[in-house]
């Protein structure tokens, strides 16, 4: 009796091993099925290399406020106020036709299919809150240098929860990794947690 009770945890563990192996093997397939059921996949199609500094930004995306900078539009609903924000961004960062994005004349799948789709499919959309903007032909606040918004390569998300100058994040921290994994830099690096930009060194 005593020997059987001492070996039973070991036996149980051994019995559970095949079950764990099956679960581990099936988990990615179930996840893939779940994503595919929504008709979405992460294409990673035709991303431009993330530029560093002003010269590379201009070489890759053109002059500030050029027509390509505001060529693509996408809706992004905020979870807190029920409002759907529509904003524009650069042609090279999205608008390519996929299962969930119509052909908008874009060159890649970055923002509207891959980043947005990833956030939806990771069930993180509840963290994207009010105040969502993209292209804007303006300079950086407090300076006369062009903002990355002027190239349509920057997005502000959850602006009402993540004010500029705040060196920590309350909601955007939950999905910032998705942007980072798709070539974007998070503005928390310079105390602007609402801000994501497709550029470094600027």
């Amino acid at each position, binding site marked *: 009796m005593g020997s059987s009770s001492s070996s039973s945890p070991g036996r149980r563990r051994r019995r559970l091993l095949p079950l764990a192996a099956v679960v581990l093997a099936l988990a990615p397939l179930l996840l893939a099925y779940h994503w595919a059921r929504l008709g979405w996949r992460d294409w990673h199609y035709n991303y431009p290399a993330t530029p560093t500094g002003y010269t590379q930004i201009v070489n890759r995306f053109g002059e500030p406020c050029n027509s390509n900078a505001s060529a693509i539009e996408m809706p992004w609903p905020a979870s807190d106020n029920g409002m759907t924000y529509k904003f524009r961004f650069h042609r090279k960062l999205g608008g390519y036709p996929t299962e969930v994005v119509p052909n908008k004349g874009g060159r890649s799948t970055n923002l509207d299919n891959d980043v947005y789709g990833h956030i939806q499919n990771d069930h993180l959309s509840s963290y994207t809150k009010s105040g969502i903007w993209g292209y804007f032909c303006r300079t950086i606040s407090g300076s006369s240098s062009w903002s990355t918004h002027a190239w349509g390569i920057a997005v502000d998300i959850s602006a009402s929860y993540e*004010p500029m100058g705040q060196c920590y994040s309350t909601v955007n921290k939950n999905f910032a990794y998705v942007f980072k994994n798709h070539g974007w830099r998070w503005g928390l690096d310079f105390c602007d947690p609402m801000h994501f930009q497709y550029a470094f060194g600027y």
Partner: protein
Amino acid sequence: MRRNIAGAALVVGIALVIGAFALVGDAAPGPQPPSVGPTVPQDTGAGELLVVVLGGVYPSRAEAEAANTALDFADVQGYYVVPVAQFQGLQEEVGAPGDFALVSAFRTEQGAQEFAAFAQSLGNPATILPNRVRSLGGMYAGLGQEAAPDGSGPLLRPIPESLP
């Protein structure tokens, strides 16, 4: 005895490793300052007829500056504090007493409309004045921060609509 020697060697080894890390840490470069690109020229549009988006009128510069600081404009530039007398016709257009105004000036209607929509979406006051006003020069009020109608980049020159 051997244990003591081994212990001492371990302590020295750890100290050396910490020292090496500290040296490397000292030598590591600091954060790179952001590169500075071309800035927006301080274009006052002197003599041009401009579309003005008004954020408010205040009796003194200090009050106007304080009100401007309190407005939330995310990480993009907002209004500029200018004397009301800087624009011919502005006093009549604003219809309120005050010597200083929060404005953003544009050459195109579209630029003004986009800015007003953005300001309002942030909960900030923004009124597009119904008639163009003539710039008499003076302080910078935001010209150059709108897209050129042909999509070539920022609008940095007069257009037919802004010329008297």
